[in-house]
């Protein structure tokens, strides 16, 4: 951690994000902007049935259609490639990019047509004749636990993919000594991140150099490794270009199956092949849905509101092809008890497969549903005991002097001041006036409510929780790296090795490098090395880049600075300890006239070997590769305890809503959020994450759902039916920052990429329930659709009349 406190030159200062320039000018370079000579286009044939046997596929008419080069089916592709990666240990669940023998959800891709244009490819795709035998589908989440539910993957034997029981701390004792228990159910609907840019990929095979070039809208760890495994080619025969701008992701840009289709076709046909999902491809067949969870929870607590323990069962419907999705049941273990002082917790995690589109990681990797579950319970306890919800939280929040605080699962929270953030947020919301406003609205016959959520954003991506769900995943290394050089003219270039999907990594690196080197961040060039030119990255998931890449940037910069000081000392004829560096000048302490400028040192390093200290390598280039700061690097112990993510950001949300009792329509009229992500690197970027995250969370709370009917037919394949909130639905957001630096990172920074999304669904649900409290209604199913809210109001009023 820095000893410079708040005296930063560039860090935490309001400076324009450097990426903005190209995006605002319309000069971003996205996957669909990249064209290479001879490029062909893919359109997909999708299954209309939730579950069906494929009797035959006749592509003869499609192949005769103008401009068509090939029609690829699952039979061919599965014979020529290996199955895609599953996070769980489920060897009999085989995932191929195209359906093999059976379709497992409505919208699943059955064949891929390659043609000269996407128009021609779509024309031909309609001519592919697939003979299906429709079968009953496995749909409803609880029914998937039954042994007689239609088997999604018959070879696996059941629709339960994994079922794990964990117990941390003295659960039974805590329950026995608590004065009350309260059981409840919470339901998180199937929503996701739905980026403006759908997934797109272009693959080109060079048979002479034996290199597969891949340009993709990707945000995924181990991408080239997964491509190599599927195609059976060496990892060093794959070059993924990381300088492709990614137009939104928050976890979902995981087009491995798209990539394998195009890469296979590019090699087979000797033509560059690209696949750009259209919206329907993306929403129905892109395997980009998020968690779909049913929580059954019991809390144990005392009459004074002290919550001691929680027993939790989570069923997660991961759809037909699990991929990495099910591991989202593991991440929340990182902060399973939220910001509260629970001393024990029991967790049953169940992952089930269904005839629905596959699940991918979504912003927070399962933390937002978990936060919603926890906060729902805290509000219910408050209602049961008649204790004010803010007060109940105060009584249970970990206090600032208690850090580092170890939760029952073995993870230590690094730092925080939760009460201070809550108090700041109450001030920001002008809470007393807000209460008066609510009460006045109620007196005027409206339903009005104030929401509250106090919750955590674990950051850093120390993903050893994977091993808790799959013992075979013994991965304990989660690195990021930064290569930095100062050239002969003194100009600084920093190299990262991942794509960016809106997080502002160039700003992050330039700001931190600028701070460490006392150079104007705008003068620092940041590039994205391709996958052959850099170490693999874990990719910008898990709010980890400020933490891990940021710390690596600091370290690389500090190495550069030390080397320059060493060269300066040698040339100034003093010991290194007597050289001081300030804004581009190296001088002897107390004798400012004895100095060397930055550019002179750079020149010496590159060109004047005779002026280098003996034994010093020429040139100025340093490299830093970092494991997650503060990670033990070990596997969980026999009690399944383990330090997971290193840094814990905190948020307090206070929205105000009014509900039209006649229509059930919720209006979010006001929103205050307090936020602590330690040292803020760039305030605009953090605010963007907060506000964008809030919008994302309001969508999950009130509007967004990938709905299926009871037969498994997909109902929400367009923006007419999958309802994203627009600016009309998002209130003006007031935010306030608090800074509790993390002791584990270079400048005290923590993660902030999951932003407001981790608390907004819980907070909106809390506000709706506060509005409905006078009617004694409590809802815990997201999204809270207006017709469900109206139905609950209607039912209660009918009861009362009767």
């Amino acid at each position, binding site marked *: 951690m820095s000893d410079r406190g708040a005296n930063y030159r560039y860090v935490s200062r309001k400076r324009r994000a450097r990426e903005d320039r190209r995006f605002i000018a319309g000069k971003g370079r996205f996957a669909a902007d990249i064209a290479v000579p001879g490029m062909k286009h893919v359109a997909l044939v999708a299954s209309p049935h939730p579950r069906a046997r494929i009797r035959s596929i006749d592509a003869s008419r499609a192949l005769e259609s103008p401009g068509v080069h090939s029609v690829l089916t699952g039979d061919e592709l599965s014979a020529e490639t290996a199955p895609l990666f599953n996070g769980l240990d489920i060897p009999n669940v085989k995932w191929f990019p195209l359906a093999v023998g059976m379709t497992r959800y409505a919208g699943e891709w059955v064949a891929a047509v390659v043609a000269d244009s*996407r*128009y021609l490819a*779509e*024309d031909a795709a*309609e001519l592919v004749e697939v003979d299906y035998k429709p079968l009953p589908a496995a749909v409803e989440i609880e029914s998937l636990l039954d042994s007689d539910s239609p088997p999604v993957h018959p070879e696996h034997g059941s629709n339960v993919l994994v079922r794990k029981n964990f117990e941390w701390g003295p659960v039974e004792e805590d329950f026995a000594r608590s004065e009350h228990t309260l059981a409840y159910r919470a339901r998180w609907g199937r929503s996701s991140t739905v980026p403006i840019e759908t997934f797109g990929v272009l693959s080109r095979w060079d048979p002479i150099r034996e290199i597969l070039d891949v340009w993709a809208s990707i945000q995924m760890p181990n991408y080239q490794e997964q491509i190599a495994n599927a195609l059976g080619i060496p990892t060093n025969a794959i070059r993924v270009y990381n300088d492709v701008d990614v137009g939104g992701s928050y976890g979902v840009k995981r087009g491995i199956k798209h990539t394998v289709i195009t890469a296979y076709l590019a090699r087979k046909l000797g033509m560059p092949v690209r696949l750009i999902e*259209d*919206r*329907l491809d993306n929403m129905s067949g892109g395997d980009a849905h998020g968690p779909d969870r049913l929580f059954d929870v019991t809390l144990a607590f005392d009459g004074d509101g002290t919550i001691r323990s929680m027993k939790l069962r989570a069923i997660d419907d991961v759809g037909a092809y699990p991929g990495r999705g099910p591991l989202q049941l593991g991440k929340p273990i990182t902060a399973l008890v939220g910001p509260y002082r629970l001393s024990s917790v029991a967790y049953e995690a169940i992952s089930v497969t269904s005839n629905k589109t596959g699940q991918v990681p979504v912003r927070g990797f399962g933390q937002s549903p978990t936060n919603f579950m926890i906060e729902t319970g805290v509000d219910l306890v408050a209602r049961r005991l008649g204790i004010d919800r803010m007060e109940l939280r105060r009584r249970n929040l970990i206090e600032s002097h208690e850090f580092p605080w170890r939760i029952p699962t073995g993870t230590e929270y690094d730092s925080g001041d939760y009460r201070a953030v809550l108090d700041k947020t109450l001030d920001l919301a002008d809470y007393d006036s807000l209460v008066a406003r609510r009460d006045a609205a109620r007196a005027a016959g409206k339903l009005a409510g104030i929401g509250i959520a106090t919750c955590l954003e674990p950051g850093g991506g120390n993903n050893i929780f994977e091993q808790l769900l799959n013992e075979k995943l013994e991965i304990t290394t989660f690195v990021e790296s930064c290569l930095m050089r100062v050239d002969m003219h003194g100009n600084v270039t920093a190299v990262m090795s991942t794509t960016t999907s809106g997080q502002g990594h160039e700003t992050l690196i330039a700001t931190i490098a600028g701070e460490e080197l006392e150079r104007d961040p705008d003068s620092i060039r940041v590039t994205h090395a391709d996958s052959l030119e850099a170490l693999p990255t874990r990719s910008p998931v898990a709010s980890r880049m400020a933490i891990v890449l940021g710390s690596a940037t600091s370290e690389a910069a500090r190495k550069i600075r030390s080397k320059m000081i060493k060269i300066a000392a040698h040339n100034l004829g003093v010991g290194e300890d007597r050289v001081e560096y300030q804004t581009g000048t190296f001088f002897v302490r107390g004798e400012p006239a004895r100095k060397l400028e930055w550019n002179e040192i750079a020149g010496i390093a590159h060109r004047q070997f005779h002026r280098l200290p003996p034994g010093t390598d020429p040139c100025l280039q340093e490299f830093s590769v970092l494991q997650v700061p503060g990670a033990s690097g070990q596997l969980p112990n026999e009690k399944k305890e383990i330090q997971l993510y290193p840094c814990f950001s905190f948020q307090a949300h206070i929205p105000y809503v009014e509900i*039209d009792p*006649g*229509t*059930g*329509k919720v209006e979010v009229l006001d929103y205050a959020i307090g936020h602590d992500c330690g040292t803020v690197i760039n305030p605009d970027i953090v605010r963007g994450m907060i506000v964008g995250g809030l919008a994302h969370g309001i969508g999950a709370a009130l*509007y967004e759902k990938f*709905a299926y009917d009871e037969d498994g037919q997909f*109902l*929400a394949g*367009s923006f*007419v*039916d999958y*309802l994203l*909130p*627009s600016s*009309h*639905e998002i209130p003006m957001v007031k935010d306030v920052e608090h800074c509790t630096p993390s002791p584990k990172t270079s400048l005290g920074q923590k993660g902030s990429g999951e932003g407001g999304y981790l608390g907004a669904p819980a907070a909106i649900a809390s506000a709706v329930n506060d509005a409905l409290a006078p009617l004694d209604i409590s809802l815990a199913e997201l999204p809270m*659709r*207006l*017709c469900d809210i*109206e*139905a609950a109001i*209607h039912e209660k009023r009918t009861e009362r009349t009767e």
Partner: protein
Amino acid sequence: MKAAEFDYIRADSVAAACEALAAAGPGEERKIVAGGQTLVPLMAMRLARPSLLVDIDGIPGLAGIDSVDGVVAIGAMTRQRAAELSPAVRSELPLLAKALRFVGHPQTRNRGTVGGSLVHGDPAAEIPLVAVALDAALEAESTGGRRVCPADGFFETPMVTAVAPDECLVEARFPVWNAGRIGTGFREVASRQGDFAIVAAAAQVALDGDGTCTRVAAALGGVAPRPVRIAALEDALTGTRLEDRAIDAALASVEAVIEPDDDLHATAAYRGRVAKVLLGRAIREARDEALA
């Protein structure tokens, strides 16, 4: 999301458009495109696949608003936004002006047309609802000449209207109420602003000097295969002073008229209950406006 192949004709007159439609073979799916805000996305998704598209966007004189002899005539190509901002519509058809604000978003209203919305015939759409509420007359042309259809009967089933495949709607004529103090009310509920209404309600009332209701029009959208008038309610309220109690009692007649369905966004039961809530509010809004 690439449209299937189609022929495209840009007509320079209504006659030319009608000739193009008539010349098409009987098996051809013919469509007129005006603002394209509904049809083009449907074509991109291949849910609509006309083989012939006749574009009437460039026809002179097909857009425009005239107010003559107690009738506001709106040309079929008139942009929804132009109608919304038209002084004639605002002063003489305030119900339509109110409804237009709920049609999509300003961006789509800049392209979408009044005629296009009428011919599309979405049972929850605002412009058809107002046409039914105000007894608009809809004039269509074909190579055989022009004919006028009353709004009552124009809307048949969802997305099906009385306009034949070889006809082009040219004008919608809305009668203006002049007698007494006029008030209007328009209410709808949608999941998000700008969405298709789940339920929409339109009301227009005329009160005489002492506040007695001499005329009332009330209609609902989103609760039947077409926008529906609630005639029994209109009859019951005519002659009352539109007291809250009278309105609430009259709303009972809604149930007999509507045939709501379930869909992804709302249940039939919801639509039924909310229809009464919104129509009650629309009538009260109209009453209060007339009295103001």
